[in-house]
């Protein structure tokens, strides 16, 4: 009995631990392992519950994985019907509940199970002759070693490719943006969002040069510098500030970015677009 129910206990435990890992914000690798177990546990249990007959190991793995992929689809649709929002907690709850229901279903199934009909047995002692078997290759230690080596090589290629792609040379870049702050007015279907007239804009600098950089940002109005910011950014860092903005076409607002030590050449610029009347110096 214990041996027959071991799989149920394991699957149920996986679900509870997976749910607990989510609730307690377990460390990344632990949550990944338990989360994968939680994701596939309902599939195994419902495969056992629906297809209680003896399947080969491969068939059991395949049907379990297949049902594990089906259940979130049907469960999500059920939640949609019940108007339950599908946030992370809902998905985890769904998987835990499906697993626990699966535990009950398999337990009931096994309690009600009648002994297998010997005529269905492929055992030669049963009524039906066993189909001829192909010679078994057998997994010798050497074979296992070779398979293991193949797995290491194959997975190693992924690690190699990740490192290689990360090392691929791209020209570094610095992004300068001046985005008017606008509220979306309700849009009609088939039309883009209509926006309010902006009075402010977000001025932003993002450093993706691969190394820390020093910049100087000058804000000009009608060609005169009204504000200067010295900016130092590490790789991947963002600097931003809110500035007054106008759509009056008489007032050119322009931001010139310089990459130090060169303070003469404009490295990037953005403007509010009344025209190109004022050339940046």
């Amino acid at each position: 009995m214990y041996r027959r129910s071991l799989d149920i206990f394991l699957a149920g435990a996986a679900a509870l631990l997976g749910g607990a890992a989510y609730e307690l914000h377990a460390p990344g690798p632990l949550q990944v392992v338990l989360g994968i177990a939680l994701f596939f546990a309902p599939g195994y249990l419902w495969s056992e519950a629906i297809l209680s007959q003896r399947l080969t190991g491969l068939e059991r793995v395949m049907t379990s994985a297949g049902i594990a992929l089906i259940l979130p689809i049907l469960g999500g649709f059920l939640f949609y019907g019940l108007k339950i929002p599908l946030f992370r907690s809902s998905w985890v709850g769904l998987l835990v509940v499906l697993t626990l229901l699966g535990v009950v279903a398999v337990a009931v199934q096994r309690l009600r199970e009648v002994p297998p009909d010997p005529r269905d047995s492929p055992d030669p002692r049963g009524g039906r002759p066993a189909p001829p078997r192909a010679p078994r290759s057998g997994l010798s230690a050497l074979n296992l070693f070779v398979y293991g080596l193949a797995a290491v090589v194959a997975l190693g290629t992924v690690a190699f490719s990740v490192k290689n792609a990360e090392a691929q040379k791209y020209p570094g870049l610095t992004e300068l943006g001046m985005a008017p702050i606008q509220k979306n007015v309700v849009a009609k279907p088939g039309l883009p969002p209509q926006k309010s007239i902006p009075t402010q804009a977000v001025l932003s600098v993002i450093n993706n040069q691969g190394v820390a950089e020093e910049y100087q940002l000058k804000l000009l109005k009608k060609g005169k510098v009204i504000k200067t910011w010295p900016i130092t950014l590490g790789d991947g860092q963002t600097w931003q500030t809110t500035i007054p903005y106008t759509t009056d076409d008489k007032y050119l607002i322009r931001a010139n970015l310089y990459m130090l030590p060169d303070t003469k050449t404009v490295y990037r610029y953005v403007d509010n677009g009344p025209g190109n009347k004022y050339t940046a110096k």
Partner: protein
Amino acid sequence: MVAMGGSLSSRPAVRGPSRTEPAREASALSRVPVSVITLIAALGVLVSSLAYADGRAGAGSSSGTGVALYWVGQVMILLPIGGRLLSRRQMSNGETVTLIVALTVAEYLLKINYSPLGFTFNDEFLHYRGTTNMLDSGKLFEPNLGLPIGTHYPGIEEVTSALISATGLPVFESGLIVVGVAHLLFILFLYLAFCVAIRSHRIAGIGMLIYFTAPALTSFNSMFVYETLALAFLGMCIVAALRSATEKSLSDRRRWFIIAVLCILATVITHHITSYMLTGFLILVAIASRLTGSRNTAARFGVLATISAVSVFCWIFFIARDTISYFAPTVQGLAQGLQSLRKGGSGAAPVTATSPFSNTLIGAIGILVISLLIVVGVWQAWRRHRRHPWIFGMMLGSLGWFVDIGIRLGTPDGQELAGRAATFVYIPVSVLAALALTKLVNSGPVRRMGAAVTAVILTSVVALLVDGLANGWPPFWERLPGPHLVSSFESSVGPEEIAASNWTLKYLGPGNYIAADAGTYPVLLGYGDQDALQVITYLYTTPTWSPAVAGHAAGQNVQYVETDTRLTQLLPAAGNYFPGDITFATQKLTPADLNKYNNIPGVSRIFDDGTIRYYDLVTLGYVPQKP
């Protein structure tokens, strides 16, 4: 391994290899242990991954060494596995499964290794956006600007969201796990289906080998797209339906029937075309069963086909009404193309990027060889198995191959449509081709001539597999990852495009109408959640801003325009600079075509990273009307 009761299995099994006539010598590969073949395949993955590294080093697909290395790696994967599956040496079912798994995993790893840091295949962006939207909003049918139809088929987003929630993994890693499992399941379920129906794991293995020659299998069907997941359900449904018809006990038949119904529902929710194909498949086997006198099988498949058809109809009627408008242009184009073909004219299929002659040649030979194998397979099936409902159904289904060729040659977008349809058409084709190949390999003359002829057959099959890869995706000009190419699918997706697209979402909000080149377009849809526009070439082909251009832009509600200085330096390898443009670009854009936006009164320059710029056409009043 497989159930043998019921009406299907009461038919005689497909004849296995004859042993009455001893082979002179099997191929050398037949003596190599499967574990060693798996190791060679893994080394093949390594060699091809080294080729990818060579491409990334700077030369991309123009590196002759890199491309040669890539194909050496592929041959290391395909040749030993193909040779072992085709060999007459008896293999256990487990060994056959191991080889099929090795082939599937090896090709999937190469797909991962092509872009191991994030999604780069364009369709994957659309489902990245769908998944992100679902996780952020907690709603099932959130609008997806890049794939409006996908909004109503949320299966892959649901599964990925559940995995992300349980594991805490990002969308990319979770997506790789979901599609990896789904892809492998599809292949294995298809193999199981072949085994259940043909009752020979050897012929089923050869059938799967032939199935791997389908052009989209190792590329599109292993991407993070909804069809990949739906195919797993299709495969599982076929097996469950066959088992529901063949199991001995009524209880077992009912249980498999439940699984088949669950698979039908999951397929209908996940992907439109796959659900139609599944319905068609169930109808096909039901008809074939009726014609061959297997009433029990016909009834089972008939009920399942009805459930599938009703589910599809209800889904379209109640949830996904836009499916009809989504497919209308494709169906019209197909009808027009086929009509013009019937009248003897050209289908006016537009010329796409010119493939190298070798790819075209190998593609043509592939069509010829498969067609011949189908003819031989049909002859074999008719002679020996015409009372076998599954194989009879496959005979009928294989006619789809010739329709597929018609679509390929005679309709607009025929190449792409035929490639996508091949996923389904190749199922019956593989069965018949496997029957033909088995007959060929076991025929007296071939056995007498020994290893030389086996080598020729193996070479032909490997050539077919190479044909599937060469004419699949990615195309020859981006066979290897490498430096940035303008407006050219995966080769145009890099950190800069992703960063610029992320900027739009962060600072402009989602859903803006943005005109962009074909390289940035899918990234804006996916990472940027913007409504990137098609057919916007006119914005980039005049050196000045004219009232005509302004009027056209206003008519299209263009809010922002993206420019990329690299568009003035290179021609697009894919053929077109802009999405929706069907004319080949033969001249580079001029700097004035792009820089005019710096000088138009009222147009703001809101973003600049040195290469990519965004211009705001609307904030200072709408599109300016004066040049």
